[in-house]
């Protein structure tokens, strides 16, 4: 476990690039994968990825795009049955022709969007989607709870993307939110084969290993590993608590019928016994509510961050691969002798790859601090909300028992008056 925490803000590092005049970014061969023009100066590049402190979190007051995911409906075709979700977008952004859109999307469409975003921005941290299908526990694909949990996660996913300073301005995101039919958009971009090629190269490079990873990324890598362990533990503990609570509730429910049964044989005691039965029932209901909160509110967030941790690790790997590709080509270049013509071409390739490394690293640096901040906000608010819910639970139970106690004291007060009269 690394003792060194990851510094939250990398903006100081980015300033170095301004002063480094050796860095050349003129290149025709590399461009941003989604077609937008390549920034052609170091400073503009830095500006693209630099995040001012106050822009790290999307300011809710300056939000100019609002997305909701709701209204899941079953869609039946000859081949399959699936759920369609309604995605409503309200925006004042100029790149949108209209200010309101409504489309229907299925889970596969979300998968498509995310994979495009990851392709185009390999070292940005793209929020995860809810898992395809939960195997453990008898969760059916069309079970109401499952659909609702998924809907909420999809809603959060789109909102996370919309809050991202870079990801929310891509054409794929726009198409997802606005196009009636996504099919034509799905055919664009680097095809399956080129993606295959990338994967093969990535594997080859990872086998070779990295020459030297900059310290800052090693620190990030370690953090990603550790964070992943910890958030998985928290997730597991929470699941266990839910399980224990459920079992507790099952037993607790036996109290009320037992007290009620006792009422039958008593006279003077009947009234307080009825009170006990009622208290137990109320406490049971409160416990049920508490369990719902845990499993519907806290657990899904924890689970999302379990998936985020995997995303972090994947991002680190991709960054490493980009660096490895450059290093391989660079070595080939350095060890080459003769053939001037081919040498120039290779030099161009190497330069392009070097730029790619630079871009990837900057992208990651910027996004890292944004992600950390966002994670902190999300988890803090989730834990606070859970703690609040627990306080509420005990407050409600307290009220139940205090009211019972009050009723008993009133009774005995009356009795005492009766005795003395």
């Amino acid at each position, binding site marked *: *476990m*690394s*003792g060194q*925490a*990851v*510094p*939250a803000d990398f903006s100081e590092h980015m300033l170095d690039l301004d002063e480094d005049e050796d860095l050349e970014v003129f290149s025709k061969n590399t461009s941003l994968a989604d077609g937008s023009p390549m920034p052609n100066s170091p400073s503009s590049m830095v500006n693209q990825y630099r995040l001012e402190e106050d822009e790290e979190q999307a300011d809710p007051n300056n939000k100019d795009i609002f997305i909701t995911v709701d209204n899941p409906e079953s869609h039946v075709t000859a081949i399959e049955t699936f759920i369609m979700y309604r995605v409503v977008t309200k925006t004042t952004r100029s790149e949108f022709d209209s200010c309101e859109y409504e489309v229907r999307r299925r889970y596969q469409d979300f998968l498509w969007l995310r994979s495009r975003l990851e392709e185009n921005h390999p070292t940005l941290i793209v929020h995860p989607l809810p898992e395809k299908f939960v195997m453990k526990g008898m969760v059916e694909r069309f079970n109401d709870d499952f659909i609702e949990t998924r809907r909420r996660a999809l809603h959060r996913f789109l909102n996370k993307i919309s809050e991202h300073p870079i990801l929310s301005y891509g054409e794929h995101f726009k198409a997802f939110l606005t196009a009636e039919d996504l099919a034509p958009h799905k055919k664009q971009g680097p095809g399956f084969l080129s993606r295959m090629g990338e994967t093969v190269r990535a594997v080859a490079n990872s086998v070779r290993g990295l020459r030297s990873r900059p310290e800052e990324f090693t620190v990030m890598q370690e*953090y990603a590993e*550790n*964070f992943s362990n*910890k*958030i998985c*533990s*928290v997730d597991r*503990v929470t699941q*266990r*608590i839910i399980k*224990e*609570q459920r*079992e*507790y509730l*099952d*037993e*607790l429910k*036996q*109290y009320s019928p*037992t*007290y009620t*049964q*006792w009422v*039958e*044989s008593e006279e*003077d*005691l009947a009234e*307080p*016994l009825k*009170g*006990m039965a009622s*208290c137990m029932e109320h406490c049971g209901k409160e416990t049920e509510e508490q369990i719902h909160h845990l499993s519907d509110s806290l657990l899904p967030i924890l689970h999302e961050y379990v998936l985020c941790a995997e995303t972090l690790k994947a991002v680190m790997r991709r960054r490493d691969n980009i660096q490895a590709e450059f290093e391989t080509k660079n070595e080939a270049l350095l060890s080459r002798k003769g053939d001037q013509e081919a040498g120039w071409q290779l030099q161009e390739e190497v330069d392009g790859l070097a730029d790619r490394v630079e871009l990837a690293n900057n992208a990651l640096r910027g996004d890292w601090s944004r992600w950390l901040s966002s994670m*902190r906000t999300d*988890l*803090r608010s989730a*834990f*606070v909300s859970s*703690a*609040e819910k*627990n*306080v509420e*639970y*005990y*407050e409600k*139970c*307290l009220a139940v*028992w*205090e009211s*019972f*106690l009050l009723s*008993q*004291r009133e009774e*005995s007060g009356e009795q005492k008056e009766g005795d003395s009269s």
Partner: protein
Amino acid sequence: MIMADSGSSEEVAVIGNTDLTSAESENNIINTMVERGTALLRKMEINVAEAEKRTGKNTVNMQETYTVYLIEVRPAETVPEGGTQAPPDTLWRRYSEFELLRTYLLVTYPYIIVPPLPEKRAEFVWHKLSADNLDPDFVERRRVGLENFLLRVASHPVLSNDKIFFLFLTEEKGWREAVLETGFQDKADSRLKSLSAMFRVKNPDKRFTALKHYSDELNTVISQLLRVRARVADRLYGVYKVHGNYGRVFSEWSAIEKEMGDGLQSAGHHMDTYAASIDDILEEEEHYADQLKEYLFYTDAVRSVCRKHELIQYELEMTAQELAHKKQQKEELATGTVRIFSLKGMTSKLFGQETQEQREVKLAALEQSIQEGEEMVKQKNTECQEFVQAAWDDIERFKEQKDKDLREALINYAIMQISMCKKGIQVWSNAKECFNKM
């Protein structure tokens, strides 16, 4: 002031503002709803102060370990300002001696609902609690139960006057002999044997039948309640203890975080506090379980009184039946008619009538027997009526005591729940503040 050294009284006081009235605090400290009215209690204060382990040879000359309990008795007197109380008289008793005392009381006062002893072995245990008789928590709870038993007997209008009970509290050495000298063993054998035998009463007393039903129902429902309680306690323990894992994980996690670290770490501490709090909570709940158990065991005593009444009733009916039979025989002999088939009748028919003299001898004997029979019936009748009278007095007393005690127990349970909720609110409010600092 009766000191029921329940040991849990201090915890009750510490639980914070549960708005206990002074009367209720007093009741919480006193284990039993003790009537101060009995002559014995006006004179003495009774405590079961301590428990100690002893080893010795038992009846089969084998080494055994057992627990003895220290009984303290001191005259009930007001202590002058600044003065100290006179030291008490003390003696040691083991559980089996308590059992002997109780058996003696059961036999000697069959019409009294004799207070029960605390359980011999731990039952209705939730699994974290030890079922071992030598476990210190069990011994402590038994100590409290034994004191409760003595106080109940001492506060009973009839039982408190018993000499053997007095000697139990005051004579360590000679007590066993004194009990055996009363000869209760003989009564015990015959009475207790008959109680287990099967017999049917022709005209059962409706009140006793109803009482027996009630005591059976109470037994069933309290057993069920104790079972539920044990299972709930088990589960609740699990819930609280798992939160301890949060403590551990948050602590580890805080080590890899910068800004979030402090908040996580301190929240983790509160999770540990939460997990630890269940031990005290459930220990207190044992007290509620013990109060229920006392009445569970009381139902056995009630049932026993009903059965004894049935036995007396049955004996009365048998005696009356025998008398009626004899009277029938006399009538036959006097009038010479045989209404009831009897071997004598048949033989006299077969072998000729008896002489007048023989008849008169028989008649005289029968008269005598009938007279004795009538005396017996009168006696049994009186016995039965006295039993019923005495028993119903005690039953009414018991019913009042039961209602009062159980109501008190329910109130105490509510107070415990309130305390538990307040602890929960405290811990989670603290945790929330820490999370806010994340």
